[in-house]
């Protein structure tokens, strides 16, 4: 516990670094915490919950033991509450990009330059990292990074630009409203005249259109034209207008997220069809000190269920303990009856009284 500490702003040292804050990564914090093991988590999403929070926050799950029904978001919220006593440190909005061996364990570095040194690495990367969907528009590659973007890093980048925003959800609407004052012109392109976003944003967008401050095109994007990475126009198609083009020098596309294995492919783990093979005793990879739990792992009989991931987290923690506290003896205890565990959870009788 004493090796937990923050050094430089972006340098951290901890017991375990968990890649992925989906339900399984979250529950791992609990199982590790009961054994006095501290954890940091890295996730490219800006919030916890993985698939449950990103793909189906409102949909019901019926096969979590003892919870007859719980939505993806509720499950996430409950896990966050359950792990609170262990004070996990989250590094959101960051991609775990590299994994290196160090004298004492492992070093994980993110795309934002965060460095985490830990004795143990737990890969709980699920179906892969969530990254923006890249539209299937011919020739789009040539403009990526120069004129076509899937996220806004710096708003100033769009000042004075003729901007096209594609999509019909909250991201598309929010950025439309934020960038409209900066852009030389702004056109929102969506496939239908119906938006799934906060009603207030939709109203504001429609008002800007009515005032002639921006344009709305109900159309499909069929192509891009320009030269040397500079965009000149976006080709559109609609039932009413047929094929037409609008001048543009930047495009932002918001079609939601998709899961991609990402950098884990380069971690030197012998992948089996994009999954990380593990044993079923400790859920450890062929490299000692690196574990894989949840949807990302593979073993005979694997079921991609939250329930299986929870079990895997418990067994992983037993072995992680041996790496973090080689001198200590592992003691098996129930949360129901162990005052030691109850103290860790902040529910010990003398405390609660």
């Amino acid at each position, binding site marked *: 516990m004493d090796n937990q500490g923050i050094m430089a702003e972006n340098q951290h040292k901890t017991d375990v670094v968990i890649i992925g804050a989906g339900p399984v990564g979250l529950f791992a914090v609990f199982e590790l915490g009961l054994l006095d093991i501290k954890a940091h988590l890295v996730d490219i999403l800006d919030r916890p919950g993985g698939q449950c929070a990103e793909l189906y926050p409102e949909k019901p799950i019926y096969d979590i033991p003892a919870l007859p029904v719980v939505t993806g978001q509720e499950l996430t919220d409950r896990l966050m509450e359950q792990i609170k006593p262990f004070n996990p440190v989250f590094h959101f909005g960051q991609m775990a990009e590299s994994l290196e061996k160090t004298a004492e364990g492992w070093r994980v570095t993110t795309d934002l330059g965060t460095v985490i040194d830990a004795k143990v690495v737990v890969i709980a990367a699920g179906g892969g990292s969530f990254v923006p969907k890249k*539209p299937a*528009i011919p020739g789009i590659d040539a403009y990526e990074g120069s004129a076509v973007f899937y996220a806004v890093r710096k708003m100033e980048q769009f000042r004075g630009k003729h901007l096209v925003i594609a999509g019909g959800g909250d991201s598309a609407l929010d950025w439309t409203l934020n960038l409209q004052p900066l852009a030389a012109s702004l056109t929102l392109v969506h*496939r239908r005249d119906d938006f799934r976003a906060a009603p207030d944003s939709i109203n504001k967008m429609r008002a800007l259109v009515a005032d002639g401050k921006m344009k709305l095109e109900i159309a499909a994007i069929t192509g891009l034209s320009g030269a040397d990475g500079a965009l000149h126009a976006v080709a559109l198609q609609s039932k009413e207008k047929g094929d037409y083009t609008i001048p543009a020098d930047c495009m932002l596309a918001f*079609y939601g997220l998709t899961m991609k294995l990402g950098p884990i492919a380069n971690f030197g783990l012998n992948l089996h069809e994009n999954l990380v093979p593990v044993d079923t005793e400790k859920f450890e990879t062929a490299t000692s000190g690196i574990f894989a739990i949840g949807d990302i792992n593979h073993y005979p009989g694997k079921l991609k269920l939250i329930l299986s991931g929870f079990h895997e987290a418990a067994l992983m923690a037993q072995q992680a303990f041996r790496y973090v506290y080689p001198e200590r003896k592992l003691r098996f205890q129930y949360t129901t009856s162990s005052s030691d565990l109850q103290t860790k959870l902040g529910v010990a009788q003398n405390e609660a009284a």
Partner: protein
Amino acid sequence: MKTLTLNVTNLDGTDHAVEALAGWQVMEILRDHGFPIKAECGGACCCATCHVYVAPDWVDRVNPMGEDEEVMLDSAMDVRENSRLSCQIVMTEALDGLHVIIAPNPE
């Protein structure tokens, strides 16, 4: 159970006739036969990575699109009049011979 046929035009334009079981989602049949759809959400109408076009003569014969599906199509690519999410079409005897065209999936 009677085996049905699903006709599929792949991205490269090749035509295939595959066996299908009644009660299965078209997505599941496509996935089991290795067609290039990701079907990331496993058929829950949450990902739009199982996008297909239904051949024009079948459009009126498949079950109509629900609101969820229409909204989810906003995250699909190259959406057309005959776009559908293949997890939202369930094979039935009435759909024996259904023809779908695989749509370009996002990377």
